């Protein structure tokens, strides 16, 4: 784990209101694994850092994907090339992708693309055939970037690809990885209990101390999205108790 003063090097648009920020973070770039995240703070900014999956690595740079979901992310998006943020990471336990499976299906909903690119590249490097299913509400909300051998689009309104959910549009595969709204992940759990899913929670410290990012488990009790997670076997999670929608305060 590293605490890096990271310079923002670029920002690009990948869907309606969805952006990729690139920042210089050498130590994190060389250590990060698929499904891991960074916790980003800035000054002046909100009190707590904000967690983001690492979307891509390019040499000494890392990329994150974000939307202005609250006051904090809006501030982050107003920053320019050359501004600095404090970047803590890599954090969490990511996807387990080893040799063995012949096929993998990656299912992402909305911002869930954020944890999929590194996973797609890792799987491809092991000779696994990767199908990536992108889901969003409309074609304009679909991330324009992708990776993998086969691509499937799914939109709620049918404006691009299959009309319906990404989960319904996904083929079966030896390895199933998913990231998106918790409601979508609960549907993944129904269909593939053994799938690996990256959950979304509110987060405090990101390092396992505050116990704020509790994930309720089927076997009882809670553990920490930032430490044991954010990737879990879908069947392990008590989906009834995990908040299905996170709303963000506008005042923080």
């Amino acid at each position: 784990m590293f605490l890096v003063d990271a310079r923002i090097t670029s920002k690009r648009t990948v869907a309606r209101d969805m952006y990729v920020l690139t920042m210089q973070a050498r130590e994190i770039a060389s250590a990060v694994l698929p499904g891991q995240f960074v916790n980003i703070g800035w000054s002046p900014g909100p009190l707590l850092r904000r967690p983001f999956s690492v979307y891509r690595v390019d040499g000494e740079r890392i990329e994150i994907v974000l939307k202005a979901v609250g006051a904090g992310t809006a501030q982050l998006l107003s920053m320019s090339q050359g501004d600095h943020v404090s970047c803590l990471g890599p954090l969490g336990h990511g996807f387990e992708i080893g040799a063995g499976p012949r096929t993998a299906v990656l299912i992402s909903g909305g911002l869930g693309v954020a944890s999929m690119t590194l996973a797609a590249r890792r799987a491809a490097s092991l000779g696994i055939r990767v199908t990536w299913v992108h889901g969003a509400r409309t074609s304009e909300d679909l991330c324009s970037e992708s990776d993998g051998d086969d691509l499937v689009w799914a939109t709620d309104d049918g404006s691009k690809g299959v009309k319906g959910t990404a989960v319904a549009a996904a083929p079966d595969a030896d390895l199933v990885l998913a990231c998106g709204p918790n409601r979508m992940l609960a549907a993944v759990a129904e269909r593939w209990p053994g799938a690996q899913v990256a959950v979304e929670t509110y987060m405090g410290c990101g390092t396992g101390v505050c116990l704020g990012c509790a994930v309720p488990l089927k076997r009882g009790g809670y553990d920490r999205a930032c430490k044991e997670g954010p990737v879990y076997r879908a069947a392990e999670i008590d989906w009834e108790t995990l908040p299905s929608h996170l709303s963000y305060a506008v005042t923080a």
Partner: protein
Amino acid sequence: MFVAIGELKLRGPVVAASGTFGYGTEVPLLERRALGGMVSKGIFLRPREGTPPPRIAETPSGMLNAIGLQGPGVEALIRDYAPKWAEWDFPVFVNINGESAAEYGELAARLDGVPGVAGFEINISCPNVEQGGLYFGNDPRAASAVTEAVRKRTHLPVWVKLTPMVTDIGVIARAVEAAGADALCAINTFVGMSIDLNAYKPRLSFQTGGLSGPAIRPLALHLAHQAARAVRIPVIGVGGITRAEDALEFLVAGCAAVQVGTATFVNPNAIAEVHDGIAAFLEAKGFSSPADLPRFLPRD
């Protein structure tokens, strides 16, 4: 930068606050030379699951938490953590909790003499448990009974962490001093609330939570000062301290030491930065130790 908390000497004036430092094994990247000591996450006799999510909500310059004292219980703490503490070069205090005065006493007795346990911080101020916690902290008789129950079972230093949710903190401070406390920690979190305007209900599943962070600092400073005026035992100031200047305000207002909590969530090295900033201030002003700082402490 030694400071004295009663009989106990700390190598520095900054202590890691309970609930923000786990069991001392979790916080990465902190320069530990700066730790005067630490207080463990609150523990009960038995394991506790804690509250369902959402457990935290950010507010302006602060955060609400309702973790519910999730923890493994005292036996796991003795087995898994105390042996590590025994190897460390700073004292570890255990934050103890119970649903009755007798439970607090039992916990102290179980931990007394365990290598690695340097003392106790009695938590009579947690707002996030159904029974116990805050109840003991806003009744001087209950606060005194809990303190006595612990005092009878240990010769180790006993600190009592006070709640701000009282009309006169001096009354509680004097009651626990009389019951045998060696020091006071002032203050724990304020009870707060935040509403989700999409769901028309509280953002925390527990409905209310403890407010911490810079938002509470001026309130905490005032209450720590009031407690320090009311008693002769040392007061350890806590509440929203993020920078050295914040800590120095508490020291001048009559505190013998400080605890840093929520700041560690944001900056894993916050404790070291506060410690080094205090040292730099003392040197610049020509003081050789925190005890030499002028105090603003009219006595009640």
